[in-house]
């Protein structure tokens, strides 16, 4: 018979026990950036609605998004977008059954982190410099 008192049953070691590793951290951040990008998606739609409205309202929203606080939020969103993009591609490769060796997983984890930073910098340089 299973123990009906769930509270007294031992639990397996969970997140707080383990030392952070590149494979667990990239996985967690894939989710965090995915959920965080909800905010960026809302801002994009807000900007589109403003553009389809009058010039005055567009000026207000566009001005807000191009201010320094808007730059911080959109710049952070840009990194989150590229990061989620890179880890997403990594997941698609995994879905083919490839890239599961421990050395490959560790290597691709660092590649994904580096690529997200490079792509963010390249996008900023291409459009804002």
């Amino acid at each position, binding site marked *: 018979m299973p123990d009906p008192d769930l509270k007294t049953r031992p639990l397996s070691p969970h997140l707080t026990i383990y030392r952070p590793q590149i494979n667990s951290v990239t996985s967690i951040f894939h989710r965090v950036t995915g959920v965080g990008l909800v905010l960026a998606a809302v801002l994009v739609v807000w900007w*589109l609605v403003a553009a389809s409205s009058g010039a005055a309202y567009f000026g207000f929203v566009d001005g807000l998004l191009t201010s320094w606080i808007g730059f911080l939020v959109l710049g952070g969103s840009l990194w989150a*977008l590229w990061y989620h993009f890179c880890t997403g591609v990594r997941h698609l490769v995994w*879905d083919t059954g490839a890239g599961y060796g421990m050395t490959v997983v560790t290597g691709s984890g660092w590649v994904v982190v580096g690529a997200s930073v490079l792509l963010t910098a390249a996008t900023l340089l291409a459009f804002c410099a």
Partner: protein
Amino acid sequence: MDYRTDRQRALGLGASGEGSQHWWSQRVSSIALVILTPLFLWIYVPLLGADHADVRQAFGHPFRAIAGILFIMVLFHHLRQGLQVVIEDYVHNRPVLTALTIGSTLFCWAFGVTGVFAIASMAFGR
């Protein structure tokens, strides 16, 4: 030992009742976004901070409008699917889980359709 009936095994829909449909749809939308995301950034980031008349003018171009509409549609579809997975993984209270799933679905449809309408209205020169 397999406790499923022959019929359930033949249907292949598993405990979720929808088989691999959600998983597969999420892969298809992510492959679409691999193409659409760089396209969206390339077309739309230069319009940020531009003159309002120039922005409206830019949306008159069918390529920009179609790429934008495709991006918004697939983005919110993918977002809804992703949020559903996260909610199912971390929310174990059934009524809260149901409420959050319905809420995130309505949110994604509302913002997705609003974004598509905004682009379309500019594309058709309203």
